[in-house]
């Protein structure tokens, strides 16, 4: 792992206790977010993307248990921190933007009240905090922000609300912004606008972004590094160029084939990956992708593959990559 990583996750395993037994949501996940970079995490629903982001913020739900590993934020382990230490990190050094902007703002408080309230740690006058909130809203593209601070969340559209959520996240100038599917709840036009905004902000914002999405196209557009998550495991990671031009894991290949934006030929059917994501109550002892893998061979069903380095920054958890 690079020494200068703002966030570095090492061997993280997380379980959820459910009435039917423990669900192994994340298993031996390692990744790093180098300072100043944008790292994308891609995966299907239920692959553990959101669990990963909540774990990094120290916001795991009560029924989650960490079975092993470390989450180092600037060298300090988030998992062993107390409430006060976590709160000192949250907002000022790391912040998060959530998936659904319709529910991520308090419906009964005006935007201005929420944005000034969350600056409670700053020693500044109320007028200054309000002005900072307005300036941040202007920066994320809300027109006439001084007036709109008195509006309530329901008076804004979905795209606007997501801009507001991003502005709130940036108020504390965090070193790391975690964006958990920030465009999934928006339509395509708004999605493009939010991505454009994040790219613009990236130029000014000296921090790093951990961008979570199930959309490979967005990741290719925005990120420097990609982490491919499948059924709670990192199956492949590398730079965007490496992953998109030379995927080494069959799952990544399949994902790329299935991306609707990359399909050139007119066809009646969308390509799909046959089969289902495995039930994480009982994790197979061998390769997790073996039941769905087009290139599966005997060893895959018997033995769990290790992480094999296949490029400067690329590695794949596949027996085929070991050769």
């Amino acid at each position, binding site marked *: 792992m690079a020494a200068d990583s703002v966030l570095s996750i090492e061997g993280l395993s997380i379980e959820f206790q459910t009435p039917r037994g423990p669900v192994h949501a994340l298993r031996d996940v390692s990744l790093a977010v180098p300072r100043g970079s944008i790292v994308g995490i891609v995966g299907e629903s239920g692959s553990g993307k959101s669990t990963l982001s909540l774990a990094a*913020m120290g916001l795991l739900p009560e029924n989650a248990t960490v079975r092993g590993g470390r989450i180092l934020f600037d060298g300090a382990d988030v998992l062993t921190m107390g409430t006060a230490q976590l709160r000192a990190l949250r907002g000022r050094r790391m912040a998060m933007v959530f998936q659904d902007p319709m529910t991520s703002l308090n419906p009964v408080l005006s935007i201005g009240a929420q944005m000034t309230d969350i600056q409670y740690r700053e020693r500044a006058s109320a007028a200054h905090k309000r002005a*900072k909130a307005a300036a941040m809203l202007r920066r994320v593209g809300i027109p006439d922000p001084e007036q709109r601070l008195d509006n309530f969340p329901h008076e804004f559209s979905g795209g606007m609300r997501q801009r507001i959520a991003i502005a709130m996240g940036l108020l504390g100038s965090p070193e790391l912004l975690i964006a958990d599917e920030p465009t999934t709840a928006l339509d395509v036009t708004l999605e493009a606008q939010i991505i454009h905004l994040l790219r613009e902000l990236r130029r000014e914002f000296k921090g790093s972004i951990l961008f979570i999405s199930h959309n490979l196209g967005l990741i290719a557009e925005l990120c420097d590094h990609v982490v491919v998550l499948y059924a709670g495991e990192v199956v492949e990671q590398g730079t965007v160029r490496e992953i998109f031009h030379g995927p080494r894991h069959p799952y990544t290949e399949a994902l790329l084939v299935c991306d609707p934006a990359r399909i050139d030929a007119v066809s009646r059917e969308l390509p799909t990956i046959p089969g289902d994501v495995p039930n994480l109550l009982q994790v197979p002892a061998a390769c997790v992708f073996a039941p769905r893998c087009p290139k599966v061979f005997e060893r895959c069903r018997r033995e769990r593959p290790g992480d094999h380095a296949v490029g400067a920054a690329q590695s794949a958890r596949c027996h085929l990559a070991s050769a």
Partner: protein
Amino acid sequence: MSAPAFDVPVVTIERSGFLRSRMIRRLLGDPLGLLGLLLVLAVLFCGLFADWITPYDPFKIDVPDRLQPPSLIHLMGTDSVGHDLFSRVIKGSQIALIVGVLSIFLSLAAGLAAGLAAGYGPRWLDNILLLIFDTIYSFPVVMLALAVITLLGSNLQTIVLVVVVFQTPVYARLVRTSTLAMKNSEFILAERSLGAGAVRILARHILPNIVGPLFVLGSMDVPSVITLEAGLSFLSLGIPPPAPSWGRILFEGYSRIFDAPWIVVAGGIPLIITTLGFTFLGESLRDMLDPKLRRVL
């Protein structure tokens, strides 16, 4: 590590206190709310200045003038021992306010604290508090009131205590349910991810979301608590005579409804005024606290 600054130019603009005045304008624009406020203020005025505005001494017995129908001399008539009912009604607002408003206020405060603790706190605290609420729920009100009043004597403090003990779990349960529903909502998670602590989340984010319905419920309970006192008076468990409680007036009128119907009217009118006042005010407050129902003015 130097924190990377994401800075934007900050221009401070002076802001007048126009939000407060907007709140008052909104209330003035809502005729029912305004009426409610006026009625409640009238009752409060009677309670505060009762000793100056009563035309007669409310405790003065005047047997020759007993059972007089309403006239210019006795605006609401007199009762069976010659008390001036109008004076007693005005004086009675003090008891009504203490029993109704004070006890509801105390129950709301206790219910809010217990409900927030049960909803947001650890699971074991929730279980203990729920057990206590359910235990109180399972007692019949009148039986417990009887027991407590027999033990502590029938006076104002005992009645307030009984009301607080019974009303607190009602509000606490409402607050607990709303808190639980909101605790895992995304905006609370978002606030936590930005560094807000438990106190800030409870006070700034959960509380404003639940005070609206709680206010309405509380304001509508004020009259029913006043009638509870009336009911206890009927069982001679209320405030002991000669204190002029509205309930006592009402129940005296009840027994003389054929020969002196004005006594029931005298006891009923202040109850109706108080009920309507608090209900209108409560509904208007709820609308004002809910931004989606708030009318643009």
